[in-house]
């Protein structure tokens, strides 16, 4: 694997290989000294054009636990604001000797564009509303860890909320279906893309109807600007129809799992404290974030799968 740009580019084998590799990384993280020399001498640069302290720290921790050097490119103080083109910026940092870029950008497709401009490996840490492949890997790993199921066949994943603007949803729909799950999207039509008929999903506009048949309830964050944009009349109305309340938790099956990619909007999509949900995996999602990203970095830079390409 040269780059990690989108879940569907991995293929099922690639997806499973990364999840299996994550098992090793989880063990490393449990050691008293959670650090291995695997990526000594390699440099990983975080190129975050959009704030996300959580994701950036998760990647940088992962890189450090594998002994890679890390560089953080701070956009607010960079020459991008002085008129330097993105391509020039990437070329400059590449010249400093970077093996991988972790890229987060508000614009769709930037990681692909950058991959054309540098020889380094690119990891997509979120591009617009398009893809967030490491989050999907984290989520799949977390479900696997909780259920001990390597295939999601027979499982019913329900993704609730702002699908239209969600890269997490797009990556997870791909990952969940690749692993064999049935996926239902629950949202008001205004928060769904105009046409999802070609996606391997069912669509519902009524959360209460779906809850009793749900194995994994995946709640998405609703950003408050969606109200100003006219996607929902008020947050209160959204919350009443699509928020997770104590009553709705009661309607879940006993073993159903609740997930959220964070950061949570309490009082909007999460009307209750996640710790009040018996099978909430939200903390496991965060904990597994580092291990999954270690697996991705090691696969790209250390496994030797690119040796032919580098020669």
């Amino acid at each position, binding site marked *: 694997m040269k780059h990690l740009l989108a879940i569907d580019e991995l293929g099922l084998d690639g997806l499973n290989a990364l999840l299996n590799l994550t098992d090793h990384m989880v063990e490393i993280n449990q050691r008293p000294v959670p650090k291995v020399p695997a990526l000594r001498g390699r440099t990983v640069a975080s190129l975050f054009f959009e704030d996300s302290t959580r994701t950036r720290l998760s990647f940088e921790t992962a890189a450090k636990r594998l002994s890679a050097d890390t560089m953080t490119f701070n956009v607010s103080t960079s020459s991008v604001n002085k008129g330097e083109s993105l391509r020039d910026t990437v070329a400059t940092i590449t010249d400093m000797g970077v093996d991988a870029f972790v890229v987060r950008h508000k614009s769709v497709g930037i990681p692909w564009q950058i991959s054309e401009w540098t020889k380094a490996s690119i990891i997509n840490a979120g591009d617009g509303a398009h893809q967030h492949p490491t989050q999907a890997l984290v989520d799949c790993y977390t479900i696997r860890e909780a259920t001990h199921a390597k295939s999601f066949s027979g499982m019913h994943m329900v993704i609730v909320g702002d699908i239209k603007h969600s890269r997490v949803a797009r990556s997870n729909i791909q990952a969940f279906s690749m692993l064999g799950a049935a996926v239902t999207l629950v949202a008001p039509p205004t928060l769904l893309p105009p046409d999802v008929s070609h996606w391997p999903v069912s669509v519902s506009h009524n959360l209460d109807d779906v809850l009793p048949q749900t194995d994994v309830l995946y709640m998405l964050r609703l950003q408050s600007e969606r109200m100003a944009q006219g996607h929902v009349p008020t947050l209160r109305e959204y919350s009443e129809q699509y928020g997770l309340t104590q009553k709705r938790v009661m309607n879940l099956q006993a073993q159903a799992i609740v997930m959220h990619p964070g950061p949570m909007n309490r009082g909007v999509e999460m009307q209750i404290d996640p710790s009040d949900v018996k099978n909430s995996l939200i903390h496991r999602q965060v904990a597994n974030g580092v291990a999954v990203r270690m697996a991705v970095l090691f696969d790209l830079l*250390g496994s030797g799968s690119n*040796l032919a390409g580098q020669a």
Partner: protein
Amino acid sequence: MAKSVVGASSHEAMTRADVKRAIVRIAHEIIERNHGVEGLAIVGLQRGGTWIAKEIAAQINDIEKSVTVPVGALDVSLHRDDIGIRPVSLGAISDIPFDLSGATVVLVDDVLFTGRTVRAAMEGLNNYGRPRAVQLAVLVDRGHRELPIRPDFVGKNLPTHIGDEVAATSDGVTVTPGSQASR
């Protein structure tokens, strides 16, 4: 590293009984060297060393009935010094569910060759604490060291050509001649 054995004439360097005897002897030597089993821990290297580690521990437990020696398994793939040079295939997951600080750790592997795996293992052990001492037990020492590493306990010293393939299982040890240039 898949290797064709067509036309190669393997020979048996140790029989099943030889292997069993060597393990029993190594168990005794470990107890003798350490004046008992106090603070002793056995760690087998994934994958070839883990079954030997378990066998040695079972022997020790059999001899010194008072205690149970803890046994762990260590995968050294991520500590190797050839990452990025050759493809890495990870072994089974490391499993050392005990603190190694202050322990006398006996690393166990099947075949000692260049010494690079053992070097990686010594580094890996440090993730689990600071052992009081680390000792090395191997079923076969086939020579050709590339690092200053010497075993404390050896089942059998086995002179080989550098390209030979040595396979060690509980059923015995076989040597398959290989090309000189393969390593």
